[in-house]
């Protein structure tokens, strides 16, 4: 099969012929139809996050089941599925207390001494986040996918596989935004826009979108932002405090920077909660003014929207199909697998929404 392989950081992905193993008893072979090119993929190209190499990136996809392992009963050949990196074991403390996205069990990947899922001759190709969706086939654990209804367009479904779940989930599950509350979202990429859309669905009273690109702020309005702030002025915190007359009940950082994380904290009202969704580079420290804790401000991380994806994703599909979740404008371009480097370059400029790879093209 063809796949886009990352062999060296800060170098283009190479389209190569890669081999894929047969499904083990609890594995599923999926033929992806659509795969989003996400900013998180870029973090691993640039080395902001380290990754074992060579690897096939891609972690936001939807497709059709091609073959199942002997113990798989949840799906069958032909089922439409969304894949998810939050593969869960189902029996650890985190899973059993409802925190499936925090499952750390290694059993959803193959053990070191087993033959790899992806390879080229004698060379192991590391599977990225147990998925690797920039490839014509994916071999994944049965707990890394969810069945969806067949009237859901695959390109939109792919977005639910990461950005939508991360943003909407941060609002619903991590922060538990209350109806009528004041919300600010810093960063209006795919995840930030999903958080804004989620805040609108949750019934937030004021939703302030903060970004430095006017086109993204316009998009933020189309998915539910009630106010926008172009942070180029350098006083986003002051503008939020003035708009809200005292700060937000909830803020969301959806970029992954020290400065914007600290701003998310500074934008809070007394008793408010800041949720950091963005992937802050490894080794970065964040500084908070200690006295603020006396005002019961809270700060927390959110990984993949604290999801329970087998419950959440079919609900998000319904939200899309009944018009509450706005995914159409999140896709700026449909591309071929061979155009993946162009899509990664586009992410660096921050000017566009997502490119989605369509494998039937």
């Amino acid at each position, binding site marked *: 099969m063809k796949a886009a392989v990352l062999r060296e950081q800060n170098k283009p992905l190479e389209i190569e012929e890669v081999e894929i193993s047969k499904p083990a008893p609890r594995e599923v072979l999926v033929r992806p139809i659509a795969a989003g090119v996400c900013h998180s993929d870029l973090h691993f190209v640039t080395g902001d996050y*380290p990754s*074992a190499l060579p*690897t096939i990136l891609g972690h936001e996809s939807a497709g059709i089941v091609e073959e199942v392992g002997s113990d798989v009963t949840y799906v069958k050949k032909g089922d439409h599925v969304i894949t998810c990196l*939050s593969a869960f074991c189902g029996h650890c403390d985190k899973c059993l207390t409802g925190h499936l996205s925090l499952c*750390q069990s*290694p059993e959803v*990947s193959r053990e070191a001494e087993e033959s790899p899922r992806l390879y080229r001759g004698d060379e192991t190709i590391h599977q990225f986040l147990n998925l690797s969706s920039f490839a014509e086939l994916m071999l994944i654990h049965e707990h890394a996918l969810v069945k969806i209804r067949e009237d859901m367009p695959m390109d939109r479904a792919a977005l639910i596989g990461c950005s939508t779940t991360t943003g909407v989930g941060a609002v619903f599950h991590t922060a538990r935004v209350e109806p009528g509350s004041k919300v600010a979202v810093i960063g209006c990429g795919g995840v930030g826009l999903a958080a804004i859309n989620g805040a609108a669905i949750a019934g937030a009273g004021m939703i302030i979108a903060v970004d430095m690109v006017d086109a993204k702020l316009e998009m933020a309005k189309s998915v539910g932002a009630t106010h926008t702030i172009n942070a180029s002025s350098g006083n986003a915190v002051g503008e939020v405090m003035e708009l809200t007359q005292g700060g937000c009940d909830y803020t969301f950082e959806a970029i992954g920077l020290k400065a914007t994380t600290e701003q998310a904290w500074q934008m809070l009202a007394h008793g408010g909660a800041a949720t950091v969704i963005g992937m802050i580079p*490894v080794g970065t420290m964040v500084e908070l003014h200690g006295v603020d804790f006396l005002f019961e401000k809270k700060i927390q991380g959110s*990984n993949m929207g604290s999801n329970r994806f087998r419950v959440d994703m079919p609900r998000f599909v319904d939200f899309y199909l009944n018009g509450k979740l706005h995914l159409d404008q999140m896709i700026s371009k449909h591309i071929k697998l061979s155009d993946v480097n162009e899509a990664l370059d586009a992410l660096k400029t921050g000017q566009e929404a997502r490119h989605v790879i369509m494998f039937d093209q």
Partner: protein
Amino acid sequence: MAKVEVRTDVTGNVWKITAKTGDPLNEEDVIMILESMKMEIPIEAPCSGRLVEILVSEEDSVDEDQVIAVIESS
């Protein structure tokens, strides 16, 4: 020659140890791969030298900033 400790950046589990004691290493050679939050994170040699000690085993849990190996720098 100085002994240099190799430390982890993140908590995780040791998935695979790819080097063995006594191996000569170049800076940035992969010593082991951790699994953390579904990511495979390589632990690389911070300097060139010889790997004199590996302090963890496959499947061990490791903490942030834990010393997991020692290199004798060249």
